[in-house]
């Protein structure tokens, strides 16, 4: 289908973008790469009065390391982040997870912040942000930028803590911690399809931080001490997600995947080599 008619505004500065957003409020939608939003517009599931295109705002196109975070600006594409030379050292979970997002043709335009703003419960970047305990930076016309943690930001299917007058200007992923290991794995009908279950884990010295995507209405993160019975902990987690049957998988199968993939990821039975043949990597 074709989108309903809208005004199109393409500012070149962050200030212009925010001013227009404050003026138009809920009538406006921000578009960056458009790899989620354009599909929604084409199907007329959203019919904004004005589209504010931030892809030409060069001051929002950056990847910067500061204060223990890797900060990614709102105009930065997923392909640009994947090409960031030291990503595997700084945020290894992102490096492992990026090839699983859509396809290279959509990563060429899709942005990191855009995927997080869209908040699809099966999307990889929200899961990564929540698992690592990252932050979303929101700015409006007055006052200091608001920082919201991944846990608080995702509030349900396609629903976030962003207020109508706020622009997501940056997301911050904590840098990898010494002695920690990070792993990602997902099961989908076909590579690049929405995840039936996606798991991300931060393996620390005393505890695991396990994130589950694709099951509940948002990414769910649990801290699991390393000395508890893992099978028990995973079973409790699997049942707590209130998985639903849908056309892609049954709730039973989703719980099975959480238990089985979770155990393999956390006990490191899934080694990197095993997954290389399905990863595009370059």
């Amino acid at each position: 289908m074709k989108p309903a008619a809208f005004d199109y505004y393409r500012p070149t500065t962050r200030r212009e973008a925010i001013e227009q957003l404050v003026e138009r409020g809920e009538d406006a939608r921000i578009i960056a790469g458009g790899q989620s939003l354009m599909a929604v517009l084409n199907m007329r599931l959203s019919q904004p009065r004005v589209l504010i295109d931030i892809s030409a705002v060069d001051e929002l196109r950056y990847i910067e390391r500061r204060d223990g975070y890797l900060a990614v600006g709102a105009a930065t594409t997923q392909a640009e982040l994947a090409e960031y030379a030291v990503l595997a050292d700084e945020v290894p979970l992102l490096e492992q997870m990026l090839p699983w997002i859509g396809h290279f043709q959509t990563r060429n335009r899709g942005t990191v912040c855009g995927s997080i703003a869209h908040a699809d419960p099966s999307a990889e970047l929200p899961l990564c942000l929540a698992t690592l305990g990252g932050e979303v930076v929101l700015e409006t016309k007055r006052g200091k930028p608001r920082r919201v943690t991944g846990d608080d930001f995702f509030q349900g299917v396609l629903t976030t803590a962003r207020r109508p007058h706020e622009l997501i200007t940056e997301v911050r992923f904590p840098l990898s911690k010494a002695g920690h290991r990070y792993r990602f794995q997902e099961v989908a009908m076909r590579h690049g399809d929405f995840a039936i279950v996606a798991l991300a884990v931060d393996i620390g010295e005393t505890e695991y931080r396990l994130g589950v995507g694709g099951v509940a209405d948002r990414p769910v993160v649990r801290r699991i001490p390393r000395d508890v019975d893992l099978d028990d902990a995973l079973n409790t987690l699997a049942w707590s997600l209130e998985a639903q049957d849908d056309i892609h998988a049954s709730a039973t199968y989703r719980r099975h995947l959480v238990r089985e993939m979770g155990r393999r990821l956390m006990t490191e039975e899934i080694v990197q080599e095993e997954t290389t043949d399905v990863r595009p990597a370059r």
Partner: protein
Amino acid sequence: MYVRLDERYRVTLTLNGRERSAYAEPRTQLCDFLRHSLGATGTHVGCEHGVCGACTVMVDGRATRSCLMLAVQVEGRRVETIESLAKEGELNDLQHAFRGHHALQCGFCTAGILMSCHEFLGRVMDPSEAEVRDMLSGHLCRCTGYTGIVQAVLAVARARQNNRQETP
């Protein structure tokens, strides 16, 4: 730049090496703009929500779904479509290989697949079969079963490698 919903904006771009311009409303998708306003009908429009890959073109050298991009967004950019591959009416090596390996039947998805392969082979000189299949996962083809397509892409990669080695 602000374009009202009922206005038509004059979009100027470089299409297949030539500067072109035409009018588009804000909501006009790039695929429709290419086909209806610029006459580049080689690009096919399939699902219109970014799943099938039939409408893939190159924007500033990167493969992109033209149904997930607006015409007004290519202002000043370089767009290449399937029409750019055959120089002076001669199929290029990739197109020849598709024909030789029976990599298409109805051909509806082919223009998009060729544009993805075009970017991919420019970046990955010596791809494995798994990498080719991963690259193709962004495309739906309902007639060939992909085997012929994979063989064609691998054959072109090998031939280009050989050519590079033979050139002093």
